[in-house]
C-alpha cells in the first residue's frame, strides 16, 4: 500500500504562502517614527479612530493605535504607563489619579425615546423619577397609557457615570432597568421599542430615535454649546505628564482646527 505524505506537503506550502502574503500586506504600514497608543472610553473610540486616521494621513510615519476598554480602563492604563493617552468621557473625580487633561470635545448626553412617542420634552424631576422607577407609566408625563421601559448603560460606563452625576444626583437608577453595554446597543434597544427611554451620547443620535428636551431646552448641539442644555460632559485625552514629541503632535492636531473639524463632523461639540 502506498504510504502517502501528500497532506504534509500540501498544507506546508499553503501556510508559507499565506504567511508571506500577510507579512507583505502588513509590512506596508509600519510606524518608523514611533507608535502612539491610546485606550479608554468607548464613547471616544470612534472619534479617536477618525482623528487617528486623519493624523496618520498627514504623518504616515507615525502609527496610532486606538483601543477601547472604557473610561475607567483608560484612566488606569495611562496612569500605569501602559498607554500614552487615556480617553475618558467624564470629568475626573477626587478618586481618580492626577493626570493632565486635554479637552478633546464636549458631548451632550441626549435622553432618547422612540420616534413614535408623543412626548417631546420632560423636566429634570420627571427624568429622575422615571429612571429611579417612581414614575412607571407614560401617561404620568403626558404620554400614552403604556408602561415605561427604562434602558441604561452598565455600571462603570463613563456615560452612565456622567448621567448619574449630571442628572440623577443622589437618586439611583432603578435596579431592574435594562442595561446595555454600549451606546450603540442602547440606541438599538430604544429605536425598536416604542415604550423605551434611555440616554446616549448626543453625537450618536440619528433618525432612529428622538431626543427629548430637558426643562424646555431642546437637545441640540447649539444648546449644548451655549450652555443652556444641562447635560454636557467633557471628552478628554489624558496623559500622565505634559506630552512631548509625537504624542504632543497628535494631541495638538486633535485640539487644533483640523481635529476640531472632524469633531464637528462626528456630531460632537468643538472646544474653543
Amino acid at each position, binding site marked *: *500500500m502506498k*504510504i*502517502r*505524505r501528500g*497532506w*504534509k506537503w500540501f*498544507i506546508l506550502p499553503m*501556510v508559507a504562502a*499565506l*504567511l508571506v502574503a*500577510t507579512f507583505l*500586506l*502588513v509590512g506596508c*504600514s*509600519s*510606524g518608523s517614527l514611533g507608535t502612539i497608543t491610546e*485606550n479608554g472610553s*468607548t464613547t471616544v*473610540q*470612534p*472619534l*479617536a*479612530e*477618525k482623528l*487617528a*486616521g486623519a493624523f496618520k494621513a498627514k504623518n504616515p510615519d507615525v*502609527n*496610532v*493605535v*486606538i*483601543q*477601547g*476598554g472604557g473610561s475607567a480602563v483608560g484612566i488606569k492604563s495611562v496612569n500605569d504607563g*501602559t498607554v500614552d493617552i487615556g480617553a475618558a468621557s467624564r470629568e475626573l473625580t477626587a478618586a481618580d489619579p492626577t493626570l493632565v487633561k486635554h479637552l478633546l470635545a464636549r458631548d451632550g448626553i441626549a435622553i432618547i425615546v422612540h420616534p413614535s412617542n408623543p412626548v417631546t420634552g420632560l423636566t429634570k424631576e420627571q427624568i429622575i423619577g422615571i429612571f429611579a422607577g417612581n414614575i412607571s407609566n407614560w401617561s404620568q408625563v403626558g404620554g400614552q397609557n403604556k408602561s415605561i421601559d427604562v434602558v441604561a448603560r452598565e455600571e462603570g460606563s463613563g456615560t452612565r457615570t456622567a448621567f448619574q452625576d449630571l442628572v440623577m444626583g443622589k437618586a439611583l437608577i432603578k435596579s431592574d432597568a435594562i442595561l446595555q*453595554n*454600549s*451606546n*450603540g*446597543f442602547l*440606541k*438599538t434597544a430604544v429605536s425598536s421599542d416604542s415604550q423605551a427611554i434611555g440616554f446616549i451620547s448626543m*453625537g*450618536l443620535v*440619528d433618525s432612529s430615535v428622538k431626543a427629548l428636551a430637558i426643562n424646555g431646552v431642546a437637545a441640540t448641539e447649539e444648546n449644548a454649546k451655549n450652555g443652556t442644555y444641562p447635560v454636557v460632559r467633557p471628552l478628554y485625552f489624558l496623559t500622565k505628564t505634559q506630552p512631548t514629541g509625537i504624542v504632543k503632535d497628535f494631541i495638538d492636531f486633535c485640539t487644533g482646527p483640523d481635529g476640531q473639524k472632524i469633531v464637528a463632523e*462626528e*456630531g460632537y461639540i468643538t472646544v474653543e
Partner: protein
Amino acid sequence: MPKMSAKSTQTLAKIFIWGSGFITVLILFLIIGYVLARGLPQLSLSFLFSAPQGGTSGEGGISTAIVSTIYIVMLTIAILIIPGIGAAIYLSEYAKDNWLTRIIRYGVDTLAGVPSIVFGLFGFVIFVTALQFRFSILSGALTLVCLLLPTLIRTSEEAIKAVPRSHREAALALGSTKWQAIWHVVLPAAMPGIATGIILCIGRIVGETACLYVTMGGSSAMPTSLLSGGRTLSLHLFYLATETNAMSKAMATAAVVIIVILVINTIINWLTHRFQARMYGGA
C-alpha cells in the same frame, strides 16, 4: 380517553420527529438567511480591502480585521500543533490504563467544558498582565491555544486510533522502532483526520469572541507585529454593532464570517469523506 393504538402513537411520534428536524433546519435558514439578506448588499471588493475609518458611521471596510484574523489563526495553529498532536499520540499510542492516564484524560475532558469567558479572564491575568504581553495578537493566540487544545487532542486522537493496526505492525515487522512507526507510518496515514481537526479549530477561532474580547484590545488598525492589538472579524462585528450606527456594516461582516464558516464546513466534509474512503477502501 381510550388508550391509543400503537399505530397512532407511532404516527404522532413521527410527526413530532419530522417536526423537530424541520424546526432545526428552519432555525439554521433563519439565521443565515437574515444575516445574508441584510449583509450581502453591503459586500463589495472595496469593503473587503479597505481599512475601517472609525467614526460613528463606521465607514471603511474590514481589511484590518481580515489581516488580524489571518495573523491570529496562523499564530494559534503554529503553537497548537505540537502540544495537541503530541498529546494525541501519547493518548493513543503510549498511554497505559493507570492513574496518570486518568488524570490526563480528566484534564482534557474538563478543559473542553470551561467557558470561553473564563479562558478570557485567565488570558487576561497571565498573558496580558503577568507576562506583560499587553493587549495583543500574541495574548489572544495563547489564550486560544488553551481553549482549543482539547478539541485538537480529541480529533487527532480519533484520527490516529482509526489507523488500522496492520500499518503499525507492518512497520514494526520491518524493524522500525515504535517512534519511527508512528512518525513515518501512522501520522501520515492519520493526516487527513488531523487536518480536519486543525480546520475545525480554525473555524472556532474565526467565530470566537468572548475570550478575545478581553485579551486582544479593540484596535481597528492594521497589526504591525505580534504584539499589536487587533480585532478578529467576529470582534469587529461586535464593535460595529456596539459603537457605531452602522448595523448594516456589522451585518456585512457577519455575512463574511458566515461565508467563511460555510467554506470551512464544506472543506471538512470533503476531507472526512476522502479520509473515510481511504480508510475503508485501503489496506
